[in-house]
């Protein structure tokens, strides 16, 4: 498997050297859109499921 090829030292180095990055407004927007759309679709899909695809 490809993941076995990654050396432990490489993992440690990668994480240590990871730069801190400011949280951008566009990221807030992305997360809000994802979760918001998820919640709105949840309501719509529940309605479609129970109306057109009943359990039995």
């Amino acid at each position, binding site marked *: 498997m*490809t993941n076995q090829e990654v050396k432990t030292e490489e993992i440690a180095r*990668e994480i240590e050297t990871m730069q801190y990055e400011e949280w951008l407004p566009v990221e807030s927007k992305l997360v809000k859109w994802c*979760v918001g759309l998820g919640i709105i679709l949840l309501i719509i899909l529940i309605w479609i499921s129970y109306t057109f695809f009943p359990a039995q």
Partner: protein
Amino acid sequence: MAEKEKKGLLNEDWLAFWLAILIVVVSLFSFVGIDPLGWVIKVSEWLSFDKALAPVGKAYKGVISGGFSLVLTYVILTIILAIGVSLLGGNVKRFIIGFFFVYWLSMICWVIGHYAYLASTDPAKHNITWSLKLTGEGGYILALILGLIIGNFFRGFVSYLEEALKPEFYIKTAIGLMGAVLGLKSASAFGLASAVLFRGLCAIIEAYLIYWGLIYFIARRWFKFSKEWAAPLAAGISICGVSAAIAAGGAIRARPVVPIMVASLVVIFAVVELVILPFLARAFLWQEPMVAGAWMGLAVKTDGAAFAAGAITDALIRGKTEALAGIKYEPGWILMATATTKLFIDIFISIWAFLLAYIWCAYIECKPGEKVSAKEIWQRFPKFVLAYALGFVVFLLISAPHAPKVQAVDAKVKQIEARIKILEQQLNATTDPSQIAKLTQQISEQKALIQTSKEEIKDSAKVISQTKVATSGLDALRQIFFLITFFAIGAVSNFRKLWAEGIGKLAIVYFVSLFGFIIWIGLLISYIFFKGVKPPIIQ
């Protein structure tokens, strides 16, 4: 995986597609009166070992012994898979050596798992007083445990098996075969099948949007990961493990090391989930079997572990429901809920990767010269899903015009037979000659009615019988591929990686997200969409 480096003519994804298609096409010979897969080994519950093994096809019983069927299955699988490995560009000799151990060690677990004291849901049937009621699929758990022991304590031995340890390839082939089996099942319960399919689709849309957004936020804000790390990590933890991490990493043009490191964690945690979640489902969700099935699809990462968890959950819940409530659910429907959610997830990975690439390039950061192409959707599309879909549709189309008729007549015949039984009891109880003549005539009329009913659906019954011959062989092979998947998952899971220096922060974010959110949101979504959906009852 589509992303895997291509050394041979095919990658594992395409090989699983072609192998499943080839076997499904061969199975269709049942429609010309041949049982082409009847030689495959089938293990049954046993107290006396001579009852354990038999070929799956009725036509082969008494013709070849169970032991011969076991060896024949090994030989034919070795030949077919060795050809496959050569197409993958692998080392055929090493595969043959490895597969010898993978097959026989897995099969020993499978046979032990069918021992009546472990498997039987009705101990009285075997004249025993107790049983663990794990059903025969408990053999999967034994294979997983044996694989884990070998993988973690006998690393030297694992190096001999490595070429044959291909859990993702085995499970993809198994899923390709499962499509045909579920196609026949769905023909008898089309309404239920369409509900499971649609609700599975809804569940994964929800999972993608809510999971990804939440985990990305947690990784960035709480654990201060960079964007390059957070996006693949969110995809890996929240969506579908390895494939999603690699696809998301590719989409945002992260360096290859990032998704590969995430993937190494995904594989390990998926095994932890596989060991824990089916038993949690058995304890708390046995009255909502389809919720449990969908939950496995949404919560357990990697295809292998998710389908494996679905198979164990299917077995454990059916066993418990039969033992406690006397309800015998038709096998395979709980696994179908898992498969539906997982397959939709796999399909959507390609679409999600495309959307992510577009959003990243348009709004977050666009690497120089980067172009987002819709072609990537097809490139990342899991091809083995097509084998599942083709098998499903072909067997559904073949059996859909006939299955409801046969089912209705079967139900009618059962009612008539019950009526005949009552009449026969009355007949035995009376000495009045006129009553005897009347009852005898009624019994004859009822028997004639059975004959007429069966005659009316003779052609449909023949088609369904031939379809069952095809699917029984496919299902027996599917079980063997599942079995070796369990063993292979165990053997490739090296838990020492968790203690490796430097992986701690990744492991913590994975652990917190998975056990703090993902599993429980997955359960909630499964509950919302699958509550009250029950598999067909066969008794």
